[in-house]
């Protein structure tokens, strides 16, 4: 007797960009002097660094490999866990040291002191596109919804911070909720999309029920799964 293989549901795989606020420590030479200062500070505010992500900022004082290795282990001994190293090329970091990072911006000390909760996404108005979106064109509107009064061609893409509404055929890619908005939806009059994504959860055309082709369709996130259903 042959057992039928049930098609295993594809696991949800999501990826997205997220920004975090981290503490930045900038060591100075000689290292022993700086570590002594650090110890004096933590003696006054014990537990300050525990559970905080810390970045080592070496942009003003480049350290060589052995000093850097030593610094990271000295900090680990003090329960200060370094997440990444700023200001040094990835190639100049020794093995066993956290990865290089770039693009840090200063933030106020008040923000650092406060344990931040999830931020409400910054919302702007909707973008209305009145012409058909042609193949190869990319509409990017992270501030809010995108409404297309026409069709979206195969090979075109719409990237919106909010929801995407297409009053026509959706033949390209629709990527909604990019600002971290899982409540965003994608709606279209005729579904022929190549890819749908909401807040990092995506499905390519192959993984979507073929019975939905050419029908008015809605996509939304429910229970951490991208649900695509007909609205007619």
């Amino acid at each position: 007797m042959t057992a039928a293989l049930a098609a295993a549901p594809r696991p949800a795989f999501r990826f997205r960009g997220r920004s975090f606020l981290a503490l930045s420590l900038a060591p100075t030479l000689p290292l022993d002097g700086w570590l002594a200062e650090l110890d004096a500070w933590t003696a006054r505010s014990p537990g300050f660094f525990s559970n905080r992500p810390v970045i080592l900022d070496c942009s003003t004082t480049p350290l060589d490999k052995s000093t850097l290795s030593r610094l990271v282990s000295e900090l680990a001994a003090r329960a200060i866990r370094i997440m990444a190293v700023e200001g040094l090329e990835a190639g100049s970091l020794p093995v066993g040291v956290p990865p290089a990072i770039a693009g840090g911006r200063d933030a106020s000390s008040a923000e650092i002191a406060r344990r931040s909760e999830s931020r409400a996404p910054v919302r702007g108005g909707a973008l209305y596109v009145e012409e058909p979106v042609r193949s190869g064109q990319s509409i990017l509107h992270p501030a809010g919804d995108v409404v297309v009064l026409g069709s979206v061609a195969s090979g075109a893409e719409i990237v919106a911070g909010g929801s995407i509404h297409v009053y026509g055929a959706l033949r390209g890619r629709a990527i909604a909720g990019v600002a971290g908005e899982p409540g965003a939806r994608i709606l279209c009059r005729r579904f022929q999309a190549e890819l749908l994504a909401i807040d990092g959860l995506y499905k390519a055309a192959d993984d979507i029920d073929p019975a939905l082709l050419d029908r008015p369709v809605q996509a939304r996130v429910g229970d951490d799964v991208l649900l695509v259903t007909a609205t007619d």
Partner: protein
Amino acid sequence: MAKVLVVTSGKGGVGKTTSTAALGAALAQSGQNVAVVDFDVGLRNLDLVMGAERRVVYDFVNVIQGEAKLAQALIRDKRIDTLHLLPASQTRDKDALTPEGVARVLDELRERFDWVICDSPAGIERGATLAMRHADVAVVVTNPEVSSVRDSDRIIGLLDSKTARAERGERMEKHLLLTRYDRARAERGEMLKVDDVLEILSIPLLGIVPESQDVLRASNLGQPVTVCAAATPAGRAYAEAARRLSGEAVPLSFSAERTGFLGKLFGRRAA
């Protein structure tokens, strides 16, 4: 005022050069002064299709680089007085075309001709974008098949963004020329139907040129289709398309719908 028309498609091999020659010849036959310009540097074909390949002395790149005057490079058609060809270079490549040079030559052509028809190369890089840059009107040549339609859509997007007209905020007049249309195959579902293509591309239809062996024959003879095969369905389709470009309202003679048994007896014969 002269009109610069670009015949473009994105996809290769759909009939740009054939259409440039056919439309150019038809417009010239109606008495207008027409120059057809080959922008496919390195892979020139317009001179072959026009039957002028043995008379090419100077070419477009020579004129741009000041090595020849425009009058020296222009080749007058032997059959139609008002039709001239500016051939492309075969030995160089598209990098030899400069935006300033192209602009200068097109300005000069505009002064001497009523129509300047630019035969665009395939693709979306320099040759194609330079060919469309100064156009007033675009004819987008498309075969009724999915790759061609998507590539045409891409080109339409570029016509609306990378041309001088688009940059000035003006609309470029765009027309769809559906070529190599085979109604039987469209009915069997092997090829896209006219309505499918129009729905996807959303630009006005200039004409439907049926698939025809006359086109290849004409090409090998070095004659534009509207010259040596004017009475064939393809030749007629091109002639009507040229009249529509000139502003005439010509009803589509090529019936795209299915004809019943009686229609076959009494109706017009399709290609």
